[in-house]
């Protein structure tokens, strides 16, 4: 019986950890912050640095 509770405790810990990680992961997709570190900015911005594109927009 003691072994069963110990095993159950282990599984519950893993489950709670997974749920917490899933919740944090979901929140990270809802409130994401992106930053472009390239000198040119991503394709489609006419080769201008990202900061410059933002200023011109």
């Amino acid at each position, binding site marked *: 019986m003691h072994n069963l509770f110990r095993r159950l405790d282990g599984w519950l810990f893993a489950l709670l*950890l*997974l749920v917490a990680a899933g919740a944090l*992961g979901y929140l990270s997709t809802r409130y*994401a912050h*992106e930053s*472009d570190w*390239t000198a040119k900015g*991503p394709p489609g911005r006419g080769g201008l640095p990202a900061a410059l594109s933002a200023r011109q927009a």
Partner: protein
Amino acid sequence: MTFFAVMRLELRRLFVRPLGWILAALTLVELAWRYVLLLGNFLGAQIHLAALPGGPGFTDMVSVPLFSSLLTGGMLPFGLTELALVIVPLLTMSTLAGERNNGTLSLMFGSGLSAWSIVYGKYLALLVWLLLWLLLILAMPLSLAHATTFDWGKLAAATLGMVLLLAALAAVGIACSAFTEHPPIAATASILLVLALFIMQLGAQAVGVNNGLINWLALPSHLEPLLRGLVSTTDVLWFVLLIVLALALATRRLTADKERG
């Protein structure tokens, strides 16, 4: 014995055993070959590239593609990412499984070490080894820093991606090693797990499934933006969550072992 003692012991073990040196030497040779081929492609296309305003430069065509085949396809030898999927599990396989198999894990518990100091001490030692390995690989493109124009921001983002990937692979490897007694089983489980994370998105796309959860779980969807110079909190947090999850499970397993005696 403290956490630092475990870290020092594991580091010494990594540097004394031939496995680490052999793996480092073989991977460096393979990556040097990839680097030379990428450099050849870049030099061959330089006349065309010069005509393109804002066209790809040395960082886009040589430095960052050295890290992963995700950007070049399968025409060249493996990149660092693909090699790490195999190398890191081989390095981590005996960290805890080997101790358990040799009976030294109970000795460590007997000396008053907590489960977390064993797990984190070994993890940090592995991380030091992996960062030194990454530094040696980075030295290849950096050796041409005086002769070409670098996109330092993109290289920094890609390097951050590589650091996070290596840290995550090491954590998964240690977790697999904590759950078994036999190092080969730990290595196999770790390779299969990271391979599943790596190819699950491709598998889903092959059968026409485009699920948000699968895309979020897949490793390439978090690594590729970093390699392209786009740093997002979602991607960084994914790696951090994987590391914390794996290390917490490993610590929990070792704590249970200690309680059981």
